[in-house]
Structure formats: structure tokens, C-alpha cells
């Protein structure tokens, strides 16, 4: 499975009217990789992800996810991916347990599997105390961790995380990245967008998107060497300033 491409994108574009939110991007992601999809506000990250997960159709270009074509095989793609949206998207008026049960259910897990997952998850996240509380009462960091775990419930091959750590405190961010590593270790491919450049250092490879185009794509180490800087932040600033 290693080294096989699970995401292949070629000249993918999305136009809103005349405006190219995503402008002919090409890249691939290997199985098991942690791929950082960086870019400033409005660079087009979310728009690109929505095309990859099959809820927005591209204007032009090609893309396959887990071997399935985004135009024709969106239904098969959906069975193989997990998605955590930029906007927190669990049900606030359901309890932690109810959310897990519900999302397990719509992914077609059996009752037994759901029961097992629910116990595991509550234990791992240390949510025993609040398992029966409404999600609305949880702090943001916990909600985000829960949302991530929920997106992994059905053991997807690839998981798309759109700014999973936005607005979260540094300690929780670290814990979050530990969870990401664990999932990657278990063989899940991680496609993650972020604003935090320190997080870019945790990725196997990163792409940097500016105004709808991918301006750089490599390992953090090589990028830093290429732009002769010490931090990803400086790489990013150089690119963004053009």
C-alpha cells in the first residue's frame, strides 16, 4: 500500500463566475502520508477540499481519490473518506454518545461496532464525565477532538481535515497532532489544512497555495533549504509576498 498514490489531482480548477477560487492545481498524495495543505485566508483550500470529497463539482481538471474519479464515482469516494469541516459540525443538541451513535449509524456500522467504538472513543478522549452531556457544553478543543474521532469512526482510508485546530489553545493543538500521528500510524492518509506554520513542520510534505495556485510543494526540510530560511513561517512569508 505504501507509495501508492491515494490522491491524484491534475489541473483541477473551480471558477465562481470569472473568479478562479482554485486555479489549475496538480499534486498527489501517497498512502499513509500526512499532507499539509497550506494557504492564507481565501487561498482556495476549502474550495479544493470540497471538490476532492465530492460535494462540489470541479469546473475542469482531473482528480481521483482512492482510485475513484471525483466526477463519476463520488459515491464510492464517500465510503473511503472521512471529513472534518472547517466549521464545527457535530450536533450541539445531542450528547457526546448520541453523536457517536448517530454518525456510526449513517456510515453503516453495526450496533456492536458502534458500541465498541463509543466506549473506546470516550476512554481515549477522557470524556467519561461528559459522555452524556450535550456537545454544546464542551470546550472547543474537546469538540474538535471529538469531531476528528467521529470522522475516523468508519476507519476511512483518507481523512480530510479542514483547519481542525483553528481557534484551539496550543496544548490542545499538540494533543490533536498526537491524534493525527496515531491515525497516520494506523495507515490512514491525512490531508490537513492549517493556518499555523509550526504545524506545517509536523507534516510529511506540504503544499503552499496562494490565490488559487500551488506555489510550492515539498517536504518542510527541502522547502526551508530551498528558500534558505529556518522556519516554515519564513518560507510562507516569502511565498505570500511573491
Amino acid at each position, binding site marked *: 500500500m505504501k507509495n501508492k498514490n491515494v490522491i491524484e489531482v491534475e489541473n483541477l480548477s473551480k471558477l465562481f463566475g470569472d473568479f478562479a477560487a482554485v486555479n489549475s492545481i496538480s499534486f498527489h498524495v501517497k498512502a499513509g502520508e500526512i499532507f499539509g495543505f497550506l494557504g492564507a485566508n481565501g487561498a482556495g483550500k476549502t474550495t479544493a477540499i470540497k471538490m476532492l*470529497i*465530492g*460535494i*462540489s*463539482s470541479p469546473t475542469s481538471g482531473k482528480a481521483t481519490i482512492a482510485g475513484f474519479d471525483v466526477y463519476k464515482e463520488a*459515491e464510492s469516494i*464517500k*465510503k473511503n*473518506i472521512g*471529513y472534518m*469541516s*472547517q*466549521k*464545527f*459540525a*457535530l*450536533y*450541539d*443538541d*445531542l450528547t457526546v454518545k*448520541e453523536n457517536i*451513535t*448517530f*454518525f456510526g*449509524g*449513517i*456510515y*453503516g456500522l453495526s*450496533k456492536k461496532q458502534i458500541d465498541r467504538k463509543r466506549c473506546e472513543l470516550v476512554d481515549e478522549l477522557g470524556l467519561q464525565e461528559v459522555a452524556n452531556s450535550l456537545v454544546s457544553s464542551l470546550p472547543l478543543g474537546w469538540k474538535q477532538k471529538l469531531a476528528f474521532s467521529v470522522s475516523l469512526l468508519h476507519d476511512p482510508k483518507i481523512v480530510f481535515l479542514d483547519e481542525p485546530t483553528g481557534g484551539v489553545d496550543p496544548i490542545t493543538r499538540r494533543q490533536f497532532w498526537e491524534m493525527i500521528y496515531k491515525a497516520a500510524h494506523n495507515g490512514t492518509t491525512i490531508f490537513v489544512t492549517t493556518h499555523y506554520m509550526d504545524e506545517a513542520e509536523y507534516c510529511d510534505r506540504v503544499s503552499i497555495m496562494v490565490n488559487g495556485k500551488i506555489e510550492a510543494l515539498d517536504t518542510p526540510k527541502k522547502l526551508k533549504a530551498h528558500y534558505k530560511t529556518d522556519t516554515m513561517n519564513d518560507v510562507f512569508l516569502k511565498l505570500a509576498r511573491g
Partner: protein
Amino acid sequence: MKRFVGFVRKEFYHIFRDKRSLFILFGMPIAQILLFGFAITNEINNVNIAILDQANDVTSKEIINKIAASKHFSIVDIIQKESSIESIFKKGKVKAVLQFENNFGNNLIKEKQANVQVLTDATDPNMANTISNYISAILKKYQQELNKNTTIDYQIVPQSRMVYNAELKSVYMFVPGVMTVILMLVSAMMTSISITREKEQGTMEILLVSPLKPFQVIIGKVFPYIFLSVINAIVIVLLSIFVFNVPVNGSLFLLGIESVLFIITSLALGILISTISATQQTAMMISLMGLMLPTILLSGFIFPISSMPLPLQVISNIIPAKWFIIIVKGIMLKGIGIGFIFKETAILVLMTLLFIGISVKKYKIRLE
């Protein structure tokens, strides 16, 4: 199937944990029935009536001409025998029948007193009452003119009688209306809000990324409201029967089927609204302004359609509630069967198919 059960369970959590939904679902029906218990007087214009002239003499002809000349009434039928009265009311063609007794003119001259029966369709009691007042006024005027030139005191005695609803209870008229409004409210407004809530929260995206198909999501979301609407319909009918003594003269089964049809019409409208609104606020506004207001004002629920200005009468035809109210009044108060409300039923079915068709189209576009 298992997925579906899980989905519906989640919808019920949403509903039962939201005080506002609960109030709309269960507080409204009762509040509305009580609220609309009061009577509203209405202007009448060009009300269709029929004449049964058993006298066929000069005096009766004169009175008929006066009535024909009034802008309040138009005479659409002259019937020949008493037995036709019931069927003409059942057809819903006229709101009143004016019956002149045998020897009307002779009685008036010889006995100085003659009788006219004013029979009104009391499925709409306010209207019936107003109609018989207007007719009495015309008769009275004629009588005054007659008495002006003589010392003899001629008396024309109108005898008003309501058909179908002899006791004149305004709640009779409001029950079908309230039922319609409630079913519309619960089915259309609540579903459109609950679907747009998922959009607003971003959970719709998550659902669409899951292996669930879009139509499964929609069916999962509307199913609980079908269930709750049916319960509401039952509660309203029970309230009417046991609290207000409104009879259900027709078949309960038919009433049930027609109600389910109207619930589906409303749900389709709700889905349609949710496809064109991005936020709960918008969905709510469109439901209230675009659905509830016309439903209350133009369906014949409060203001009789026959006395509306022509443009509004035309518009009232595209309001599903209008047809459902006719159906419910027919079944509950007149006790008529499917044969008499076939047209109305067919119109509702067509409207429903149209709404579903548009929603399906819109929904696909939205996903692009």
C-alpha cells in the same frame, strides 16, 4: 433501514430538545382552535344563490328582481322542487336558497302576511348569518315600499334556516381552517427550518459526505414531521368532536387519507423552501410570509373567497390550503364522499408532484 431508524431518532432528539419546536408542534393547535373561536363578520358580494319560487306570481317576481339587482347576490339557479335543495347545497354551487311559499302574493294581499324561507349553507356560519341578514334587509325594504301608499300593514316574514349546521357554531367553520393552518405550519415551516438548520450548522455537508444519498437525508428529515402532523390532525379532530361537538358526518378514513395527502403537499413545499434558503431565518420568513399569510388570508379560512376582489379570487386557486379546506368542510360537515371532492383532491396531487419535481431539480443544482 437501520440507518433510517437512527436518523429519525436523531430528528426526534432535535425536536424534543427544542422548546420552540415543541411549542409550535403541540401548543399551537390548541391555542389556535381556542383563538379562532370568535366570530368575524364579513362583507358579502355577488354571493351565488338559488331560487325556489313555488308561488310564481307578480309579487314574488318583483322581489326576485330586487335581489337580482342587488350587488350582493347573483341568482345562478332556479329550482323547481323542494327535493333539489339538498343536492344543490351538496354541490356547493350556491350559498343560499330562497324559497317562496305557495300563493305567496295571494297570502300577502288576503292575509296581509306571507312567508319566505331563507335557507343558508351553514358550513360557513358567519357567511350564512350575513347572507340571511342581507336578504331580510331587501325584503324589509320591499315591504316598506309596499306599505308607503296604503294604510294596510303588509308583512313579509323571512324564516331563516341553516342547512347542515342548524345550531350556528362558528367553531364549525374554524376547525377545518385551523387544521389546515396547523398541518401547513408543522409540515412546511418546521421541515424547512430543520433542513436549513443543518445547512447553517454545516452538518448538511457532513451528511452529504457520508454514504447517505441526498434523498435519504431528506426523507429521514421529513419523516418525523409526517408522523407528528398525523398526530396533530388526530388531536384536532378529537378536540373538535369532543370539545366543540363538531360532527364528522363523512368518512373518517377518507378524512385521514386526504389529510396525509395535504401533509405531503406541505412537506414538499417545506423542502422547496429549504432548497432556496440558506439560513433558518430566511426559511422562517419565507414560510411565514409566503405560506402562512396566504394560507390564513386567501384560503377562505377567514375571509370567504366569493367576496374577495377578482384578482385575489384568482390567486386563491394556487393556494393548496383552499382546496384542502373545501375537502375538510365537505367531509366533516356535509358528509360527502370522494366523488364530490375528486377535483380538489386531483388538484392537490398535481400541486404536490409539481413541488416535489421542482425541489428535486433545485436540490441537485445546489449540490454542484
